[in-house]
């Protein structure tokens, strides 16, 4: 037994040291720092709940929360519906479907930075940008995709969808391929319409996949940073500033480590709630 403990200790050691220093201690530290004022230039001073109180009256915080919520609650449903439709289409026995699957998935392996760099000139607010060039040729007005407060968020959502649809398509394809053919054969014998088949067979049977995709997509959306950082830098006039961008700005532009930490715990709170709900319901499904 003693030998087994010793072996376990040695096997765990390299990982546990790193886990403690770079994961567990930082997690606890961010709680502690959130109760402090700390510019890094001077020593930290205890600030009690003042960082949390400040949030209540901080209009930029609320704007970035609102933006993060709008991005998440508009993009996520669109993402799920469109990627499911894409998966259903590319699950049909069509020629070249593997090729199309690869193309649709391609943006998912590229960095958000590269995706934003490709899309920002495409969305330029003049006829020189490809999308506006086509719009003008078709007789429409120029749309200031990234430069107007009205369109910026919608544009970010569009780019976000382009990047993620293929990824969620793959998740849904795995779910669809897990459904036994016998259900569809039985439905065909009963003369069920495609819509009936979808709502009574496909949709209920992939609900665990849908739920998994929903929570994964939500958690990812709450953390949006790279895409807006390069596409719009949070602008115009904070129209696309997100919670993580605001954490970054407070920490590394204004050097307010305490306030940035308290903001990061708000992000943690959201993700904790989503994960909790996910585990709660996932367990229910397993039991059923």
């Amino acid at each position, binding site marked *: 037994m003693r030998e*087994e*403990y010793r072996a*376990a*200790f040695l*096997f*765990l050691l*390299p*990982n*546990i040291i*790193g886990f403690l220093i*770079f*994961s*567990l201690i*930082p*997690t606890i*530290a*961010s709680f502690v*720092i959130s109760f402090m004022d700390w510019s890094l230039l001077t020593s930290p001073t205890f600030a009690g709940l003042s960082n949390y109180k400040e949030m209540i009256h901080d209009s930029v915080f609320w704007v970035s929360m609102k933006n993060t919520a709008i991005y998440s609650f508009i993009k996520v449903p669109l993402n799920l519906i469109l990627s499911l439709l*894409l998966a259903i*289409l590319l699950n049909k026995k*069509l020629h070249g479907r593997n090729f199309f699957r690869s*193309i649709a*998935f*391609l*943006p*998912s*392996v*590229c*960095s958000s*930075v590269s995706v934003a*760099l*490709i899309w920002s*000139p*495409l969305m330029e607010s003049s*006829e*020189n940008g*490809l999308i506006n060039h*086509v719009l003008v040729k078709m007789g429409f007005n120029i749309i200031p995709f990234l430069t107007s407060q009205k369109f910026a968020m919608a544009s970010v959502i569009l780019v976000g969808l*382009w990047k993620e649809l*293929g*990824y969620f398509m*793959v*998740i849904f394809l795995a779910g669809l391929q897990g459904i036994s053919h016998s259900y569809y054969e039985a439905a065909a014998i009963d003369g069920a319409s495609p819509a009936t088949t979808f709502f009574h067979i496909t949709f209920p049977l992939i609900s665990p996949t849908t739920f*998994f995709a929903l929570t*994964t997509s939500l958690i990812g959306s709450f*953390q949006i*940073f*790279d895409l807006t*950082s*390069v596409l719009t830098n949070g602008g115009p006039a904070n129209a696309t500033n997100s919670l*993580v961008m605001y*954490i*970054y700005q407070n*920490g590394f532009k204004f050097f307010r480590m305490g306030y940035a*930490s308290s903001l990061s*715990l708000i*992000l*943690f709170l959201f*993700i*904790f709630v989503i994960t909790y709900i996910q585990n709660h319901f996932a367990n229910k499904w397993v039991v059923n």
Partner: protein
Amino acid sequence: MAMAQSKKSYKNIGWYLLLAVLFFFFFVPFWWMIATSFKSDTEVYTKAYSLLINQFHFENYKDVFSSMPFGKYFMNTLFVTVMVILGTLTTSSLAAYAFARLHFPGRDALFFLYLATLMIPRQVTLIPNFIIFRELGLLDNLWSLILSGIFTAYGTFLLRQSFLTVPRELEEAAVIDGYGYWARFSKIVLPLSKSGLVTLLIITMLNIWNEYLYALVFIQTEAHRTLTLGIALLRGDFDVRWNLVMAATLISISPIVIVYLACQKYFVEGIALTGVKG
């Protein structure tokens, strides 16, 4: 029969048209990037929208390397990615073996701690990590990106799940043959968990190659920039040369796209299995 078949293919025309539209939606941005990377400076200013390549200005690719230390960015990203992959696979597989197979006091409590940190977003540990690396004197050093990338709870978690599927009987037989813990781990469990290891390798590669936020915070000087950081900063230039930006972007994504096209099966399996965001 023939009529039924022609009717069927006629019905499918609609689907193929839809596929064509989707193909344009997904592929045109990539094509535009390729076309733009070959345009002359004048073409970029006057016809940025164009999807045609009039003349291949290969010198753009040369200019990418001469107008900025792009080769250095590339090698930095490659170095960080390789080191994190090696570090993650080594430390996670060792720890995963202890969690999957060995008995020791406090094992379940410790594993629960690992599980709990799975849901802590990297943005929460960013500020304390910044302070730790400042204390260690590792800011503006690639090792800050390597060390902060190696120790993820999901690596240990994923490999533990994978090791649990290796039949215990194999190890029991090995004990009779006099195998110690290390031999059982390295000669039986590891070789039989290839798919788990490949999945973790691919997820780690994607995450680290594409990492931006940590590089933005930890790296300060040009010589230590990674690819994502280097190309993102081009956007802020007063006089953006989009042909060079697109050439740089294309180079930055090609290694991962090539690996993806070569091992698609593993990417798809990995995602379907774990769903860890790529």
